[in-house]
């Protein structure tokens, strides 16, 4: 342990499996972790787990609903200090078939994956830029790289988020603030439980967390958690639309 004051990370969506792994990786590094989640009981449960696991850990919780965008500035200003890093793990796959016939469900999926995370990180970006440093990590998805019949509502939300992160990165490039886009690919979590996932393209939450924490030492712009995904998506994006539209993917 060094004598320097501990760094702090705000983890938004901290009760998901990926969020839990990321929080654990930061706590293991001695960082102060603030878990922001919609369900305070679930967040407290994760915080207790991390505090028990890591010697000297200081993991705290805040309640935040990613759909209540008006609350974001107040939420950030109420934190005791502006964190060094913000990681946004929020996301919801929803149900594609339901989204096709239920506009309210589609809107919720879009807002949860795009509007909420984008507006929250926008509010963070302004504060980080004013300070002149900070790391913003947005967890997007390979599903946002190209729309497919089986999950385009979720994919469109993630595509929007990917574009937003890219724009933020461009805007902040000279401000000392770094913006990273992380695309995990398939991850073995509660969200994907019961799905038949291809082993070589499926990562463990801990692997996603390692790649995210590694950004603290070596900032990168776009991270595919498993490198082979970059190639897979390169091929998928290269397929001409006339052919792509007839494929079952």
């Amino acid at each position, binding site marked *: 342990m060094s004598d320097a004051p501990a760094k702090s990370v705000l983890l938004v969506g901290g009760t998901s499996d990926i969020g839990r792994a990321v929080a654990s990786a930061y706590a293991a590094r001695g960082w102060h972790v603030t878990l922001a989640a919609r369900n305070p009981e679930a967040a407290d*449960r*994760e915080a*207790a*787990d991390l*505090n*028990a*696991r890591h*010697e000297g850990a200081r993991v705290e919780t805040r309640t935040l609903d990613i759909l209540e965008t008006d609350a974001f500035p107040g939420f950030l200003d109420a934190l005791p200090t502006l964190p060094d890093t913000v990681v946004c793990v929020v996301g919801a796959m929803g149900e594609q078939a339901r989204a096709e016939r239920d506009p309210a469900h589609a809107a919720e999926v879009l807002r949860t994956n795009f509007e909420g995370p984008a507006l929250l990180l926008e509010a963070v970006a302004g504060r980080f830029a004013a300070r002149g440093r900070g790391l913003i990590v947005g967890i997007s998805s390979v599903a946002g790289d190209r729309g497919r019949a089986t999950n385009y509502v979720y994919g469109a939300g993630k595509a929007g988020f990917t574009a937003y992160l890219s724009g933020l990165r461009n805007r902040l490039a000279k401000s000392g603030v770094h913006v990273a886009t992380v695309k995990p690919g398939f991850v073995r979590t*509660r969200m994907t439980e019961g799905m038949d996932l291809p082993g070589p393209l499926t990562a463990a939450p801990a692997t996603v967390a390692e790649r995210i924490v590694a950004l603290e030492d070596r900032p990168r712009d776009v991270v595919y958690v498993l490198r082979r995904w970059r190639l897979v998506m390169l091929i998928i994006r290269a397929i001409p639309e006339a052919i792509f539209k007839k494929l079952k993917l």
Partner: protein
Amino acid sequence: MKDLSGWGRYPRLFGPLTTALTAASAARLTAAAPGVVARGLGRAYGDAAIGRDRTLAPAGLDRLQGFDPDTGLLRAEAAVSLDDILTTFVPRGFFPPVVPGTRFVTVGGMIASDVHGKNQHNDGTFGEHVEAFTLALPDGRTVRCARDQNTDLFHATIGGMGLTGTILDASFRLRRVDTGWIRQTTSVANNLSDAIGLLSRTSGATYTVAWIDVLARGAALGRSLILEGGHAARDELGPRQAPFPPARAGRVSVPFDMPSGLLNAKTVSAFNALYYRKGALRAGQTSLVPWDSYFFPLDGIARWNRIYGPRGFVQHQCVIPEERAEAVLSIILERLSQTGTGSFLAVLKRLRAGTGLMSFPMDGLTLALDIPVSERGLALLAEIDGLVSEAGGRLYLAKDACQSRETFEAGYPNIAAFHEVRRDAGALGHMSSKQSERLGL
């Protein structure tokens, strides 16, 4: 339908498995319908963790709830594994008060089976270190049980094989250790009488167990290696030994079922003789062993249960009261060597009486055997059960797969009291496993 067979893969049983991610859903699923029992990591050898009608896996209850480094008090949800506890806390200088022979068990399972380890003669069972736990009852309520709160349920649940309700969380104290190394001393016993003598002497070692060559005959009947161990202090380590060696990674795995006959009298006899001679060479010497290979040698080999082939095996552990132990164990060993029904892992150990209503240990000696499943093997076990019963002993329920109702009833004197506590809790007929059905519990 899932394959829910125990670790011995005998009997082969299938059934529906429901997973709970939170305490609330585990409680709801416990109350939802009768014929249910909770299952942790499925390391009970026989049919204990298989529900009569459905099985509840509270797999999501894997969070720690709190740890106080000053007192060592750990609060953990029921599906937290011993492996998780060890990898998290050994590097911080803490060790569980009791560990069984595998680290792939859950907190809930360790309480339900009231597991014991190599220090049972000194420190008792795991249950003796549990301060409190939360139990989900069949009527949907959850209650806290402790030594001064719901005491009947507390003592019935420790060793109660999940038949009082579903354990949701528990608290117990970890002990401080200076290093992750175990100081191990091997001594040789030339026969059973010597082995029992060596196990009875108070050497001050925290952990004592004997590995016994069950196929040795005649004057060598019961020849054993006595393995004593204790947590090593910092100043016992060499300059290049890290105080807390990391747990072994890169486990090898048994990729498929070995042929059922591979472990026959000849191969097991040869293995045992070799192991005995190798051990005898180390007699009197002291060595330092990392905690994981000392306590969990078999955990290094994933799915080791496949070496017994597709028919599976029965793990059989009995305890014989002190005064009859030597005589009865001699007969058991003679029968084993006569029939050539060898066991790779035969372990002899001294036990002291347990404290749970249905706890396995009593003052005496325990013998643990692995017997490959065959008609002859099962017949021999039935014969051994008769000897155990007649001597006033009993069988360990976490390993039991085939004992008769008579053997069970003769061995456990508190069945009526256990019955009463379960009836009061509404658990009778509701919390129910294949084992409890078989034993009429």
